[in-house]
């Protein structure tokens, strides 16, 4: 009963005109970002973060969350029509979606991905609603060692899932933690690693760092490429409504995709991208006609598109329950909450339930808005694709500049952002994955505090991380994962799977 009262309260918040407006702006912008290749949801949230400084925290989170799940909707449109994924989570949708479009079935492909997204999105919000509160009661009992161990496990998983050598990802994670040390030591109030620069006195700003690493460096990577002409597949989109047969074929895929996506969304580093790939692999494996995959089967669109939307709901669980973001977009939401002076975690759920319930309720509304928004507006999105990148990229850069500047009205923050833009560009070029760095940076301060407090608790004994059951399990899992990446037999197996799936 309490659940319903809370949800009712949430709807009261999210249905207020101002929050409805922010929800609408969020999902609209999210779809737009999802449609445009070259800006992912992470960069988009970073770009729009500054616009939320002056609104209430609930409205801010409602809008930023809307961008995140809206982008998952929008990404499929370009995958299907143009064979260019609007964002990484829609890469697999290209495989069968584009083939369907070439066969003149663009309509049903777009339709099923919108409906699948809606169903999966709604289911995962329900999952989030049901799981978050009980889990947060457990999380309240966690002490410093548990938090430290769980953060270590999270970073291990992110590094494990990263690109190329595991050492490269781990170096990035270590560097991220180290970057968070810049500025005041919170425990004793001593400045450190600020190189005597005023702008670093309070630490490296999250917004300049993220905008540099994900906004600026992304533009650099795109701009250095020799331009490829974008070809928009000329087809009349008729009948967006999938037929009864289409529904029969895809319902199973949508259900499995929703489940997979939700649980993979909870895992750090997993989220929307990985779940869409896994869903495609699963559908292909259990299909009666796996050979037809890649020629335009509707399950190949319905599964991954459902999975990537379901993942967005799952991704909110570690953020709200533990205050630990599981991907870059969530790290930004964490940053947004912290700018408003709120520290996500189990205490937030108790002290400011309106934020959680308002967001959850707004996600139901947002998913419905997206369904209404997406189907009739597809023509408009396709037109948008024709805006050339040479016009687009200066605007993206300008947004980054304004964003970095406006948090503190300080031009020096723009320089910090440019530094990370150049750094991110170089690191990307040499095959380093930036996700471990960003997540580690966001978690760094908490990790240090947890580490120091744990050692004070145990009077200097490192065994404290292994004698308490929850932290021991997390530590052992993390270590096991990292070692497994090094054992030659398993390493070969990993590479073999890489080759096969490529």
């Amino acid at each position, binding site marked *: 009963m309490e659940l319903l009262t809370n949800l009712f309260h949430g709807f009261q918040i999210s249905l207020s005109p101002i929050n409805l407006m922010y929800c609408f702006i969020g999902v609209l912008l999210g779809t737009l970002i999802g449609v445009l290749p070259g800006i992912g949801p992470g960069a988009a949230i970073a770009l729009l973060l500054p616009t939320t400084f002056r609104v209430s925290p609930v409205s801010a989170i409602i809008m930023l969350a809307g961008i995140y799940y809206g982008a998952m909707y929008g990404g499929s449109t370009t995958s299907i029509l143009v064979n260019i994924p609007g964002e990484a989570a829609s890469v697999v949708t290209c495989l069968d979606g584009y083939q369907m479009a070439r066969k003149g079935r663009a309509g049903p492909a777009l339709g099923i991905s919108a409906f699948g997204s809606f169903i999966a999105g709604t289911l995962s919000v329900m999952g989030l609603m049901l799981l978050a509160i009980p889990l947060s009661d457990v999380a309240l009992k966690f002490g410093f060692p548990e938090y430290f161990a769980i953060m270590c496990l999270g970073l291990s998983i992110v590094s494990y899932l990263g690109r190329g050598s595991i*050492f490269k990802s781990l170096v990035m994670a270590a560097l991220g933690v180290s970057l968070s040390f810049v500025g005041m030591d919170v425990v004793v109030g001593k400045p450190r690693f600020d190189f005597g620069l005023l702008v670093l006195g309070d630490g490296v700003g999250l917004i300049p760092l993220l905008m540099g690493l994900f906004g600026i460096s992304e533009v650099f990577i795109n701009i250095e490429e020799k331009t490829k002409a974008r070809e928009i597949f000329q087809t009349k989109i008729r009948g967006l409504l999938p037929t009864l047969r289409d529904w029969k074929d895809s319902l199973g895929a949508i259900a499995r995709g929703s489940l997979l996506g939700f649980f993979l969304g909870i895992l750090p580093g997993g989220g929307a991208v990985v779940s869409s790939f896994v869903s495609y692999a699963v559908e292909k494996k259990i299909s009666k006609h796996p050979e037809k995959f890649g020629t335009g089967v509707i399950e190949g669109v319905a599964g991954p598109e459902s999975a990537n939307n379901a993942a967005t709901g799952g991704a909110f669980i570690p953020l709200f329950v533990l205050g630990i973001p599981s991907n870059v977009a969530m790290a930004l939401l964490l940053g947004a909450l912290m700018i408003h002076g709120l520290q996500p975690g189990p205490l937030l759920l108790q002290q400011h339930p309106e934020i959680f319930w308002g967001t959850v309720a707004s996600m139901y509304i947002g998913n419905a808005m997206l369904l209404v928004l997406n189907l009739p507006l597809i023509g408009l999105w396709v037109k948008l694709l024709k805006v050339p990148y040479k016009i687009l990229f200066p605007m993206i850069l300008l947004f980054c500049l304004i964003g970095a500047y406006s948090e503190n009205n300080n031009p020096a923050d723009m320089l910090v952002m440019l530094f990370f833009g150049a750094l991110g560009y170089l690191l990307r070029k040499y095959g380093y994955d930036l996700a471990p760095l960003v997540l580690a940076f966001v978690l760094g301060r908490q990790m240090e505090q947890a580490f120091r407090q744990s050692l004070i608790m145990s009077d200097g004994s490192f065994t404290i991380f292994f004698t308490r059951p929850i932290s021991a399990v997390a530590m052992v899992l993390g270590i096991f994962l990292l070692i497994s990446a090094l054992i030659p037999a398993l390493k070969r197996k990993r590479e073999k799977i890489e080759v096969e799936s*490529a």
Partner: protein
Amino acid sequence: LDFLLICRATSPWILNERTESLRREAKAMERYDRIFSFIWIALGVAQCVESVNFGLGSVSEPGTGFMPFVMGLVIILLAVSLLMEATITLKKSPPPKISLWAEVHWKRVAYITILLLAYSFLLPKLGYILATFLVMVFLLKSGEPVKWPAAILVGALTSGLSYLIFGIWLSVSFPRGIFSF
């Protein structure tokens, strides 16, 4: 574990590397892993030295420099492992020698970086509207060719509109510079 292996294997990077040239480029990157590991080692050492200066405290009462010192050690350890791994790969299957810079517009990237640097210095002096207009026009000209009139029109529109949105609606206080409004 198998499940995670599949997750990792199906991660998007792999799909991106489907095309032969990209796969070769990814391999070519391994040539530079050794150079980078030396950079990381140097960074780690510097971090450790700095941390000692801040005071490590004791294990039962860690000080300001304690955690940075530990992380510095971790970086050194990881970088040495990377160095060894890269050396072994280099011997076993030497990556192809392709430049990562030859076939790309890196000059364009450098030029844009300089433009953005200039913007951050000019913004307080010229004021938002003028500085933004100038940087937008030059940015528009820096990529694929945009004609002058179009660049000037788009530059004027974006600087004006963005001022309305950010400066007036969201009340970000931009430097006014040589304009007094």
